[in-house]
């Protein structure tokens, strides 16, 4: 049973991965990414990581893919047009290097020690056990993570704001009464 579920999830995630890099339509790329993320959540469940599986669905599928789709829709008009390829050798060399790397990793896995897997205790990977570790041994990284999130929010706002325009508009609104012409 576990093998069947794993096989389906593996096939779906690899198909999604091919779709992410292979499709020419950005929306299809994003939806393929969604397929990968969903099937990886299934494999996390098989690996007794319920909390991580839920986290994957909420954060990745719920937030990140939606953000990608949002940006794709926002930039919709010119995404399809690419300039002609100036680095013709890049494609074949990239494929060869990727294949060599895959071979290397698979050989490493093949010759690695494959210890038998002990059955997981029932409470392994639940929100309770993850949360207990998170708020005891890992409380400092957790707090640093909240600062990183704050920095990310501020950075997105600062980058997204058209700086010159805002400054000009601010100067104009100071000089002219309310209702001055703004583009």
């Amino acid at each position, binding site marked *: 049973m*576990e093998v069947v579920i794993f096989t389906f999830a593996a096939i779906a995630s690899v198909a999604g*991965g091919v779709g992410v890099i292979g499709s020419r339509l950005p929306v299809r790329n994003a939806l393929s990414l969604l397929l990968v993320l969903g099937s990886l959540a299934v494999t996390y469940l098989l690996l007794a990581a319920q909390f*991580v599986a839920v986290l994957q669905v909420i954060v990745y599928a719920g937030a990140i893919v939606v953000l990608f789709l949002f940006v794709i829709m926002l930039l919709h008009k010119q995404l399809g047009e690419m300039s002609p390829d100036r680095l013709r050798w890049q494609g074949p060399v990239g494929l060869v290097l990727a294949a060599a790397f895959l071979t290397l990793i698979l050989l490493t896995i093949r010759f690695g020690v494959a210890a038998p*897997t002990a059955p997981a205790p029932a409470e392994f990977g639940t929100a309770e056990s*993850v949360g207990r570790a998170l708020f005891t041994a890992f409380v400092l990284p957790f707090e640093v993570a909240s600062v990183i999130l704050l920095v990310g929010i501020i950075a997105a706002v600062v*980058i997204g704001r058209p700086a010159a325009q805002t400054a000009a508009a601010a100067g104009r609104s100071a000089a002219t009464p309310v209702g001055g012409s703004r583009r």
Partner: protein
Amino acid sequence: MTVPISAYLALSALLFVLGITGVLLRRNALVVFMSIELMLNAVNLTFVAFARQLLAIEGQLAVFFVVLVAAVEVVVGLAIIIAIFRARDTVDIDDVDLLRG
């Protein structure tokens, strides 16, 4: 019958190499970004697989932090892509070559 850990590792390796291929071959900045997400997810799968084998919860905590940093990275990266698109009207990373000699 349980799935051996090496099967998860092989799947993870395959997804990681797909991500590498996407970064190397594609020139659409958004697709390159999605490929990076693909690689992060492959590494997450490795973390979870080893956490399961060693019965160590720290592996799942690492995934927690990776997901968090990935979310921040996507927010900032997409903001940068939008800024580049506003300034240069392109998302082709070969066209953004201001630093070229």
